[in-house]
C-alpha cells in the first residue's frame, strides 16, 4: 500500500503561488500609465514580433508578463470572446469588466484545480472611456484576483522598484510626452544593495502602445513606432541595453530539489 504524504491545503496553495510568482518575476516589468488622452503601456521588450501589449477590441487592450505561450492563449481567447460578443450583440456591449471577469474565472479555476499547473502570468486589461474618470485598468493575477488600478500600475520583474519610482514621479492628466518619459525612466530605474541606478533604455528595446480616446477611428488602440518614441522622448543621453535576461529554465529541470521518487509498489 502506498501512503501519500499529507500536504495541508495552505501549504499546497502557497507552493503553487510561489511557483507562479517565481515565473512572473523572471521577466522584465511592464507599466500601464493613465495620461490625459487614455492609457499608455510601456515595457522593455527587444522582440518586435512577440508582443506583450495588444489590442482586444475597440476600447480594450491587453498587456501581460510571464510565460509567453500562456498569456498568448489568454489573449487569443480574449479576442475571440470580444469579437463573438460584439458580433452577436453590438460593439458597445463588449466591456473591459466582462473580459476581466472571464479572465479572473479562468485563472482562478486553473490555479485551484489540482490537475493543472498554475499559469505563470499577470495581466492588465485596460479600457478607455470618454474622459479620464471613465478609464479603467484591471490587474489580474495568477490566482484569479482582480484589482482596479488608478493612475499607474506595474507588473512583472522588479515591480516594486518601478512602482516606487512612479509613486514619486507620476502626475495625473499628463501629456503623452511626459507620461512616456516618466514610464521609461521608471523601467530603467533599479535598486541594488541600496544603490539606485538609472539606465537609459534604447528606443529599439521599448514596446509602447496606447489606448487613445482622441483617435477618430472606432478602434482606439495604437502601437507607437520607434521613430515616434524617439521624437516623444527627446534627448536622453547614451542608452544602455539591459543585461541579458536569465533564460527560462525548462519546467522539468528543477534539479536543485530532490529528484522525484517513484512510489513504492
Amino acid at each position, binding site marked *: 500500500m502506498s501512503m501519500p504524504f499529507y500536504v495541508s491545503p495552505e501549504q499546497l496553495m502557497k507552493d503553487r503561488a510561489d511557483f507562479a510568482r517565481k515565473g512572473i518575476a523572471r521577466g522584465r516589468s511592464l507599466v500601464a500609465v493613465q495620461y490625459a488622452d487614455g492609457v499608455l503601456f510601456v515595457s522593455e521588450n527587444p522582440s518586435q514580433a512577440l508582443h506583450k501589449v*495588444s489590442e482586444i477590441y475597440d476600447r480594450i487592450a491587453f498587456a501581460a508578463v510571464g510565460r509567453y505561450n500562456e498569456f498568448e492563449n*489568454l489573449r*487569443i481567447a480574449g479576442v475571440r470572446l470580444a469579437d463573438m460578443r*460584439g458580433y452577436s450583440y453590438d460593439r458597445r456591449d463588449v466591456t473591459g469588466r466582462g*473580459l476581466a471577469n*472571464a479572465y479572473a474565472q479562468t485563472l482562478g479555476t486553473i490555479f485551484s484545480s489540482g490537475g493543472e499547473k498554475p499559469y505563470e502570468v499577470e495581466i492588465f486589461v485596460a479600457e478607455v472611456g470618454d474622459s479620464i474618470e471613465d478609464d479603467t485598468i484591471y490587474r489580474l493575477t495568477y490566482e484569479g484576483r482582480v484589482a482596479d488600478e488608478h493612475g499607474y500600475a506595474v507588473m512583472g520583474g522588479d515591480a516594486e522598484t518601478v512602482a516606487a519610482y512612479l509613486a514619486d514621479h507620476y502626475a495625473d492628466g499628463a501629456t503623452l510626452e511626459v507620461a512616456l518619459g516618466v514610464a521609461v525612466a521608471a523601467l530603467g530605474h533599479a535598486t541594488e544593495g541600496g544603490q539606485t541606478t538609472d539606465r537609459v533604455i534604447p528606443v529599439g528595446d521599448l514596446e509602447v502602445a496606447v489606448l487613445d480616446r482622441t483617435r477618430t477611428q472606432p478602434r482606439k488602440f495604437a502601437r507607437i513606432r520607434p521613430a515616434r518614441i524617439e521624437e516623444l522622448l527627446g534627448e536622453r543621453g547614451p542608452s544602455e541595453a539591459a543585461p541579458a535576461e536569465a533564460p527560462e529554465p525548462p519546467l522539468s529541470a528543477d534539479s536543485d530539489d530532490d529528484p522525484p521518487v517513484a512510489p513504492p509498489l
Partner: protein
Amino acid sequence: MNDARIPTAYMQPGTSSFSDFLSEHAPDLLPARKSLPAGSAADIAPHGTTIVAATFPGGLVMAGDRRATMGNVIAQRDIEKVFPADEYSVVGIAGTAGLAVEMVRLFQVELEHYEKIEGSILSLDGKANRLSALIRANLGMAMQGLAVVPMFAGYDLAQGTGRIFGYDVTGGRHEERSFFTVGSGSLFARGALKKLYRDNLTEAECVTLTVQALYDAADDDSATGGPDLSRRIFPVIYVVTADGARKLADEEVGSIADAVVAARMGRPDGPNAPILPGEEARR
C-alpha cells in the same frame, strides 16, 4: 461574457478566421447557415440595388444609391449599401439587403479578427478571397432567390493602387482594372462609366463620375434611387487612398449632386462623349 471559465475552444490556438471559429463553435450565428423551405423567397425581403466603383491614380471611389425595393414598393429610401471593410478597403452590396448587411458585418469582424490575432493586415487578395468564401457559403439561399452579390475594393498597400473586385453568386471573383458596377441598375451605370471614364481622373472628378453613373442608373432603372433633392438624401460615397477609407460628408456629396442635377436640367442625358477620337465633345 458569462462568469464561468472561458471555454477550452477559445483558448486553443489554431484558426485566425472568425467565420471558421463561428462555424465550429456557434454555427447558428453564421448568416448563411439557414435551411429554407423549397420555393422562391425572392419577393419576401427588400433588395438593395446599384453600386458603382472607379479607380483614379492613387485610390478609388465606391458609391451606392440609397434605395431598397420589395417588388414594386420602395422598402427604404435611405438605406446604406457601401461599408468600410477595414481601414483600407470598402465593400458594397447588392441583393437581399438583410443577408447582405449581415454578411458585411461578418466580413468586417473577419478582417479585424485576423489583424488582431496575427498582428498583421491581410493582403488585399487575401481579403477578396475571404469574401468569396462567405458568398459561396450563401449559395443555397441564392438558389432560392436570396442572393447577395457584393463588390469589394481597396487600396493595395503593396502595389500603391486602388483595386476593385467583382463577384458572382457562386463566390467567383474577378478583378476590374478601372471601374465596375453591380445591382439592378448596373447596366446603365456601366454604360455611363464606359463613356466617361478616363485613367487620369482626379479624386474629385472620380467622385463626380460615380454620381453621374448613379444618376444614369436611376434614370432607367426603377429600383435605383436618384439623388433625393427634397429630402436631401444622397448616394453614400467612400474614397479610399493610402490614407485609408473616408466617407464623404452629406454636404460634400450634396453639393456635387446639386451640380450634376443642375447640369441635367439643360441636358437630361448627361455629359456628351466624343464619337470619334480627337473630336471635341459637343455640348
